[in-house]
């Protein structure tokens, strides 16, 4: 029985990965099919003829690379800002007690209930007043602001999970406040920082509505806005180029995740504290 257990586990894992990966597989397949094949009744994973022109059309037609560059800048900068702000703030939020903390937590939760459509017009006017409307800098600020509350909430959960005993033990050993943070807290918090960074990056990378409304010059368009242009009026969709564009759009996210994956390890604290 035990002999069969390991292969069964691998089989289940493979099935799960296939299940999760199938949409991506289908997307890649659609990106190399001709318009005729995509609009036929025949369903097949592999195309009859490999139609690479979808990629060239996607790249030529809407300035996809330029938009991807804009998205990358906005996503990376807003992620960095979110982490820089959320890291100390979440620590304070997690460790602090009393009314200030309660007010902070209350505000974070309250900020999550405002629908996007309610905040978009004030945001638009504020950005215009400070000269940042229709700019990547303005959009970066908006993404940072919008992602920050959830990132704070997320990260303070990770901080809370680090036993205060560890910090106290460090202090007992003569470490100063900064040393405790740098040598004990930050390493243990790394998976949380990475997870929060991933969340922030993906939120910004995929964000559509703010970019749609705030950006007016085509040279500032981000990737979701550009991809959206493959969907025309009257339900007209350029399926092949859209799929090709979506495949290209997924690559930076995959690269970003791959780079951070190693950092996203759990169990760093295993055995840190004696039960």
């Amino acid at each position: 029985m035990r002999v069969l257990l390991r292969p069964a586990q691998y089989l289940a894992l493979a099935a799960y990965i296939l299940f999760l990966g199938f949409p991506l597989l289908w997307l890649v397949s659609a990106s190399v099919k001709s318009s005729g094949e995509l609009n036929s009744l025949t369903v097949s994973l592999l195309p009859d003829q490999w139609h690479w022109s979808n990629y060239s059309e996607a790249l030529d037609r809407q300035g996809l690379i330029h938009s991807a560059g804009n998205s990358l800048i906005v996503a990376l900068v807003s992620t960095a800002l979110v982490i820089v702000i959320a890291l100390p703030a979440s620590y304070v939020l997690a460790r602090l007690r009393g009314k200030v903390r309660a007010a902070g937590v209350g505000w974070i939760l309250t900020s999550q209930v405002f629908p996007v459509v309610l905040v978009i017009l004030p945001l638009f006017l504020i950005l215009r007043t400070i000269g940042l409307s229709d700019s990547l800098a303005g959009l970066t600020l908006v993404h940072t602001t919008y992602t920050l509350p959830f990132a704070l909430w997320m990260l303070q959960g990770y901080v809370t999970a680090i036993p205060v005993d560890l910090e106290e033990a460090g202090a007992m050993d003569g470490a100063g406040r900064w040393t405790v943070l740098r040598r004990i807290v930050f390493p243990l918090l790394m998976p949380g920082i990475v997870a929060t960074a991933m969340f922030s990056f993906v939120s910004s990378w995929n964000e559509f509505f703010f970019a749609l409304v705030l950006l007016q010059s085509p040279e500032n368009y981000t990737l979701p806005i550009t991809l959206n242009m493959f969907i025309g009026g009257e339900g007209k969709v350029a399926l092949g180029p859209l799929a090709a564009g979506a495949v290209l759009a997924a690559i930076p996210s995959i690269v970003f995740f791959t780079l951070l994956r190693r950092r996203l390890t759990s169990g760093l604290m295993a055995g840190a504290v004696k039960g």
Partner: protein
Amino acid sequence: MKSRRVVAAALAAVTSLVLAACSGGSGDDGGPVTLKFQSLSDQPAAIAATNKIVDDWNKAHPDVHVEVVQAGWDGVYDKLITQFNAGSAPDIIHYEAAGVVPFARDGYLADLSPYLTEAKKADIPKGVLDSVTVDGQVIAQPTELQSYVVFANKSLLDKAGVAVPTGDTMTWDQLRDIAKATTRDGAYGLSWGLSSPTASMVALAPAFGGQYFEGTGTDAKISIGQGEMALPQLVDAMAHQDNSILPVTLTQSGSKALAPFYAGQTAMTIQGSFQAANIAKDAPAGFDWVVLPPLAGPAGPAQAANPQTLSVNRDSEHVEQAAQFIDFFTSTENLAALNEADALIPATTSARDALDTKLGAQNGWKEILASGQYLTSAPYLFVDKYAQWKDTVATPAYQKFLAQQIDANGLSKELSDGWDSINR
């Protein structure tokens, strides 16, 4: 559509709180005037045609420079309503009549009547001009139109011994007969993508004398009588008595319903006329297709028009120049070129004739262009809560009716009661 109304309501509320901080748009201090033209052209050829028109204008008018701002159809309502509320909307706006009429009613669009020559007015069919006339003001110039037409697989018609109709129009009864005759050998007579049936029902209702709405704005009243019920009942009869409509297509989009047509599973399909371009591109080699004459009901071949339009932001500092550009854009030559690129029907008679002369011999174009002359004003364009009714009442009710979950009386009641509930 539902989200549109939510967005509109939310933004209107917020506007009252924050708009005081907002002052007028930027102006040009001497030098050439620059106009921002937000274009929604989505096909590569149409984008090229639009850019060519703009380039021609800029060359001929060095003092008025038009700058194209390319945008997408999806989400454009939300974008525009924010821009209008914030006082930063483009000078020239490309959209559809159903989209701009609410903006006009809210006072965001300039009256183009003073800039419309009598010749241009006469060139736009009355029904189409009516679709962009709000409270006596022409708030947009129509540019491109689509109608619903019947595409047929000629080989399957021949095989069933059916002659392709050749008159100026064909009746819905003829369509039903052809569908019955071609439902054989495992194939169905018709595929019709009715996953969002309301648009088709209200657009085609005028042929049966159906108007759906009387009055405008919030005073509009719904009327569901014989004229409004005739088409859904006909579809129901074809689908469930004649069994001549491929059932699965009733729950699919129009584009999806093309696949069985290509595969020879259906002899005909009802589609937006623009699909002619896609059929020419995507149909299998040797696929012999034709467009049948425009459909006519007891009240004639009329269909409700929802044209694409160009309008001018009322807060633009250069309304007159923007209107002059639109007049240039909608010249016979330009509209013909644009509609050829987009595979749509020009909104002016002269451009339609020009396109007929140029392309009439090509497959489908003659019949499609002919259907354009029957496009008429759509009462629903002027009804404030139409979008909400369409999404929350009509579409689910039609879907239930087509799935035989409710009968004709149930459909009529749901359409009427739903409207009364929304428009309370």
